[in-house]
């Protein structure tokens, strides 16, 4: 009997797993995709929100502010890229001032530090390319940007290093059962596997309502809301320093313009109901909307798109997070309805749920818990001295595989060989940035595939983009002639 089974290896599931790995518990994470960080966690704004946005008293407000504080520490402990670049919420017309003041008051109630309104002159100094129409802005100094992939990998790897097992198999059923003592336990079906578990954590993102409703009478309902983004070339990366939000108006929530933690510039997201929970397609209208609305925030919006993508947010009808043990299903813990600011809130949700579960199972803290995880060293970010040092240890750090982002074979091997290492091309890409640059795998794909094949003991024909039939090579030439 497992102690805890977590459904979903997104940032929330992995953060919970990592916090649970502090305790003496047998924990397993089930994930339907071939890797961790394959759903909402891989396609979002990568923003660490300061916490002024959520209504005071909501779970969103509480976990946002707590999560923001935690990420500052965790980014060092778990070695993932994070930068406190500060956020600016722009009022693009004078009427907006009132709205900013409301947000300021709300933020103060939520306990967000350092909020203040900056006037046009100061705003221009802070952001020289800001739109001439910007009247004033709310400045949130604790807003930040993070690499959502590596934050998720960091949690997952640290959890796995501390004993959590990860199973890449989709959960298809949960039964609520009672043992001979009358104690409730759950029987999880995942592919051909059946696992009994004392508790379940539902961190299934856009599918969280499906699992919740399998065992609970009080139903929840999640709508996948699509957000489309455009990512600009690094040559446009310095166009803004802060994350620029637009003050929500009657016509919508607005589109943000932000540097990413890796030095690109990004615009998005739209917010439209998706066709289904797998509909991560972009649309011509969506991408048009992103560019046209983003152009309201800055003068001469750079249009050097290197890729565009869409992600799905899990919007629950009540519009707040659902976190905690279900009323009518003891031992079934929800982390559901995790839309924005979910990425920011994830570490706090992890701490909160892990404490609840450990208390319920009377689990003591482990003495040998190791909170530290080291990321993959980056040749691109290293100084020449650090580069030489890495190359001395392993000459493959001198063998460049991705020329756009300057990623070496040493880094790619590390990404594949480490705990919960990459098994797909996308997995390598998100761990190392090989293929994230302006040629978008044009050069490195053919060089990454053989490394994956070698280290996984597969043929190059078997290497996939993201698993589940996303093959690249389709046999030998002339085989049908």
């Amino acid at each position, binding site marked *: 009997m497992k102690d805890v089974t977590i459904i979903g290896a997104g940032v929330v599931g992995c953060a919970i797993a990592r916090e649970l790995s502090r305790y003496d518990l047998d924990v397993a994470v089930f994930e339907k995709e071939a890797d961790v960080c394959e759903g909402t966690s891989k396609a979002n704004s990568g923003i660490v929100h300061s916490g002024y946005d959520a209504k005071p008293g909501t779970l969103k407000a509480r976990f946002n502010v707590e999560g923001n504080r935690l990420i500052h520490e965790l980014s060092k402990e778990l070695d993932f890229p994070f930068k406190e670049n500060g956020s600016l919420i722009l009022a693009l017309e004078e009427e907006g001032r009132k709205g900013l003041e409301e947000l300021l008051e709300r933020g103060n109630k939520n306990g967000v530090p350092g909020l203040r309104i900056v006037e046009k002159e100061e705003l221009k100094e802070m952001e020289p390319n800001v739109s001439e129409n910007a009247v004033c802005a709310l400045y949130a100094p604790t807003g930040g940007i993070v690499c959502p992939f590596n934050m998720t990998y960091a949690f997952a790897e640290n959890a796995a290093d501390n004993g959590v097992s990860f199973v890449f198999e989709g959960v298809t059923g949960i039964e609520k059962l009672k043992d001979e003592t009358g104690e409730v336990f759950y029987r999880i079906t995942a592919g051909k596997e059946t696992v009994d578990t004392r508790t379940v954590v539902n961190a299934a993102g856009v599918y969280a309502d499906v699992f919740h409703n399998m065992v609970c009478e009080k139903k929840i309902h999640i709508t996948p809301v699509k957000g489309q983004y*455009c*990512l600009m070339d690094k*040559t446009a990366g310095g166009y803004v320093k802060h994350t620029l939000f637009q003050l929500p108006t009657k016509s919508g929530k607005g589109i943000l313009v932000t540097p990413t933690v890796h030095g690109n510039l990004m615009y998005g997201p739209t917010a439209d109901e998706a066709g289904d929970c*797998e509909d*991560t*397609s*972009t*649309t*011509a209208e*969506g*991408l048009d909307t992103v560019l046209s609305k983003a152009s309201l925030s800055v003068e001469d919006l750079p249009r*050097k*798109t*290197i*890729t*565009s*993508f869409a992600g799905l947010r899990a919007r629950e009808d009540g519009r707040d997070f659902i976190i905690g043990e279900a009323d009518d299903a003891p031992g079934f813990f929800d982390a559901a309805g995790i839309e924005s600011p979910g990425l920011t809130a994830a570490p706090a949700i992890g701490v909160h749920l892990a404490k609840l579960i450990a208390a319920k199972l009377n689990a003591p803290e482990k003495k040998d818990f190791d909170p530290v995880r080291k990321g993959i060293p980056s040749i691109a970010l290293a100084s*020449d*001295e650090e*580069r*030489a040092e890495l*190359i*001395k240890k392993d*000459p*493959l750090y*001198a*063998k*460049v595989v991705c*020329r*756009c982002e*300057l990623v070496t074979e040493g880094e790619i091997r590390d990404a594949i060989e480490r705990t919960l290492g990459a098994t797909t*091309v996308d997995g390598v890409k998100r761990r190392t940035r090989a293929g994230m640059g*302006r*040629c*978008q*795998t*044009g*050069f490195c*794909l*053919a060089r990454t595939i053989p490394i994956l094949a070698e280290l996984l003991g597969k043929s*190059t*024909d078997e290497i*996939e*983009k*993201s*698993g*589940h*039939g*996303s*093959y*690249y*090579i*389709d*046999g*030998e*030439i*002339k*085989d*049908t*002639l």
Partner: protein
Amino acid sequence: MSEIKKDLVIIGGGPAGLAAAVSAAGEGVKDILIIERDIRLGGILNQCIHNGFGLHTFKEELTGPEYADRYIDMVRKEQIPYMLDTMVVDLSFDEKTGEKIVTAMNKTEGLFYVRARAVILAMGCRERPRGALNIPGFRPSGIYSAGTAQYYTNMEGKLPGRKVVILGSGDIGLIMARRMTYEGAKVLCVAELQPYSGGLKRNIVQCLDDFDIPLLLSHTVVDIKGKRRVEGVTIAEVDENKKPIPGSEVFYECDTLLLSCGLIPENELTDKLGAKMNPVTGGAFVNESLETDVPGVFACGNVLHVHDLVDYVSGEAAAAGKNAADHILGKNAQENDGNVINIKTENGVRYSVPSVVRPAYMPDTLTVRFRVGNEYRDKNLSVYLDGKQLMKLPKRIMAPGEMEQIILVKSKVSEIISESGVKEHELIIRVEDKE
């Protein structure tokens, strides 16, 4: 970290780098280093196994690898040193000494610096990816740049897909339509956003017409279907503003989408160096010596502007090699008379390489290369210097896919500018109607 000194460093061992090296060596520069990131010399030519190379240079029709091998042979005969599997990661200019500092790394030497008196940039170009085209839809596997598909087919003997749609009628896309057909794949069509093809006419005849592959001009991909692997694409006709025409959508069931939508000079190092860039070509601005605005740094081949024929790359690179040699050997130290000709391109001519000419440094004849921005039939190509008509060349056809050139004769140029009495001159290249 080790540091070595070289007279000339050539970044890139493809057709441009090889021809530049051979030329510089021929001029008497012996202390040369070619730095190539691949495991063999020859660059992209190694995977261009089709024929059609070398008619100008060798007066015979060669395949890409054969053409490359001719130059590799010359490099070996001249005993020009080269490093393979070596990546240049930084390039800077030492203001004090005038030296260029090349930072590179490889598995055997680790990270090292080369101080060079001259550098020739010959890094080539890359293909425009899907994202830059803003094609909506899913992001499955099965979307390749034509060059990636070419690598798999020609270097690895693997098929990247079986039922193929090609977007963009650039030469690599056209070539790949034939290559994949030859190797057993079915190419459904080639869609081209523009009302004309971006590739050479001969490739349309030989690679599409020969195999009854339709070329859909003024069409583009408006949707990609398939969560894991491409399952199909939707193609629509576009209006004169390149906007898809509603109702014209046709769905093509396929497993592969190849993109051949243009090439972009690969100038990360040029940017790091701080050389002034031409936004039209994506390459550096250069003068008659193919020298950037950083003294002693020359550029040639597709890193300077995208060429249609490798023969022209070799020609341009040979000029860059000679000019770099002159720079190193001090041969170009003759008195600069201060005359400068700025080349202005207009009325259909998009850019020129070079963009500025110092007559004092001009060779007896100087090739100026450029491209037009539209398809023109039965027009004149006119060249004016200081208001005087220098040339009027009747052209049966000019197309964006094919590079054009004019040859400036030094004696003629000197004659005209000496009459003007000023130092700043203007040369205009434009498309004109025939009278």
